[in-house]
């Protein structure tokens, strides 16, 4: 512990963070941009898969549904490093999908994070739609909407809760480091994101730098959440 104590260290790191941002250091901006790109892409892809999946799990009865619900719920606790390892083995040149040369690229990182985010969004989507169904079940039956057709109707109706679900997914993606470290390789200027950069600085013992980067990451995530909240406010106002 330096002479300033922990509050001093944190204050110093916060100041460093602001200085880094103000200087618009191109390497830092590149890292921030890549973090956003990978995590947002993974969240969007996961939402595309998970929102309808969650709604279907709430709506339809089919053989194996119970097992699938269990898998989705358990999937929320998937250890990122295990997912990273499995995706690595999949994408490795010696693996089944090696010919595409996707390992150590941002695409591999998106794949790994999509796997991590999908169960969270699916579980929350299922819960949101289940809650809606209490109100809507008979009306949907009256209209003659079969489960598959009812999915888009219910997803739109649950849009605000689903937006929160997507933010939860994004949070998970933006925060994780275990998976993208393995499948991305933390290559400077290519697959280095905020979290892997923080891990690197920590491993170099540059704790102040790491903490500063941590503050920048917090700011970025906060900004995304603020933007989402703003969009929700606009959407609500437009609906009268």
């Amino acid at each position, binding site marked *: 512990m330096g002479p300033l104590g922990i509050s001093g260290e944190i204050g110093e790191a916060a100041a460093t963070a602001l200085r880094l941002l103000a200087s618009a250091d191109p390497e830092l901006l590149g890292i921030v941009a890549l973090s956003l790109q990978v995590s947002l892409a993974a969240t969007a892809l996961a939402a*595309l898969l998970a929102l309808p999946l969650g709604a279907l799990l709430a709506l339809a009865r089919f053989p194996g549904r119970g097992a699938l619900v269990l898998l989705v719920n358990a999937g929320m606790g998937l250890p990122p490093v295990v997912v990273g390892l499995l995706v690595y083995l999949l994408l*490795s040149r010696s693996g089944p999908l090696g010919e595409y040369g996707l390992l150590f690229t941002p*695409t591999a*990182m998106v794949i790994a994070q999509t796997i991590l985010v999908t169960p969270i969004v699916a579980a929350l989507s299922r819960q949101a739609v289940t809650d809606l169904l209490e109100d809507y079940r008979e009306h949907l039956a009256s209209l003659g909407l079969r489960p598959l057709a009812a999915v888009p109707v219910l997803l739109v109706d649950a849009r605000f809760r689903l937006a929160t679900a997507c933010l939860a997914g994004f949070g998970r993606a933006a925060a994780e480091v275990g998976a993208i470290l393995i499948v991305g390789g933390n290559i*400077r200027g290519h697959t280095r994101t905020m979290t892997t950069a923080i891990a690197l600085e920590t*491993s170099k*013992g540059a704790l*102040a730098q790491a903490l500063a980067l941590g503050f920048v990451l917090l700011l970025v995530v906060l900004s995304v959440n603020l933007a989402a909240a703003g969009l929700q406010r606009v959407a609500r106002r437009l609906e009268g």
Partner: protein
Amino acid sequence: MRLHGLAVLALALVAATLPARAAERTILLASTTSTENSGLFAHILPVFETATGIRVKVVAVGTGQAIEIARRGDADVLLVHHRPSEEAFVAAGFGVDRREVMANDFVLVGPRADPAGAKGPDAVAALAAIAAARAPFVSRGDESGTHQLERELWRAAGIEPAAAGGGWYREAGSGMGATLNMAAGMAAYTLADRGTWASFANRRDLGILVEGDPRLVNPYGVILVNPARHPHVKAAEARAFLDWLTGPEGQEAIGSFRVGGEQLFRPTAAGREAPGG
């Protein structure tokens, strides 16, 4: 309609992350954290890129993992510092054209107050003193080159530290940086490569206690991943890198790398002297 918009956005974001189709010439180098964290690559690779137009992407992980990456064909070049593993790699047919590149050394660091009395020129004697005093010692514990050298030193001292009991010997199972963080936090002794130590910022009360012992020399070898085994390897560019690294310019770049005024790596390639020079 809103859902279509989301789908288009998602696919656009994903598409933007797809690797650019070979617009630039790049090779992938699997290496260890000691070379990356010390800043050596940041110093020498731009010189290579300027000279040849080839960009080198570095994946820096533990020695074991680097070798595994190369074995699977996920890298074009391997640069590590554990000769037995390197020779086994080539013997098994995964690599060709192994060359000496450079060497650095290890140092034994520990609390400046040195409660075990380890300070001196002899690494093996230092370890014996640490074991006798049961002073806290952090090992990398990850089968890395550093870890294997540490084990050889304990063997030379005739000590089995893990079996000795008493909890003074801790296996971190981590990279060099994390291990040094632990040692700094616990005021413990540990073995570190000079490159990582020189650029390590969280030293707290640690200092160098043993250096210069010939048993602490750490040679690095560079190997081309065997294109016969993995046809997709970019053999031409990778060989260009090996030639440059072990040639006069690369060796000069390595030797000119300084941290805090100190030279960290000693160029050792056979071709480092320019012809006639």
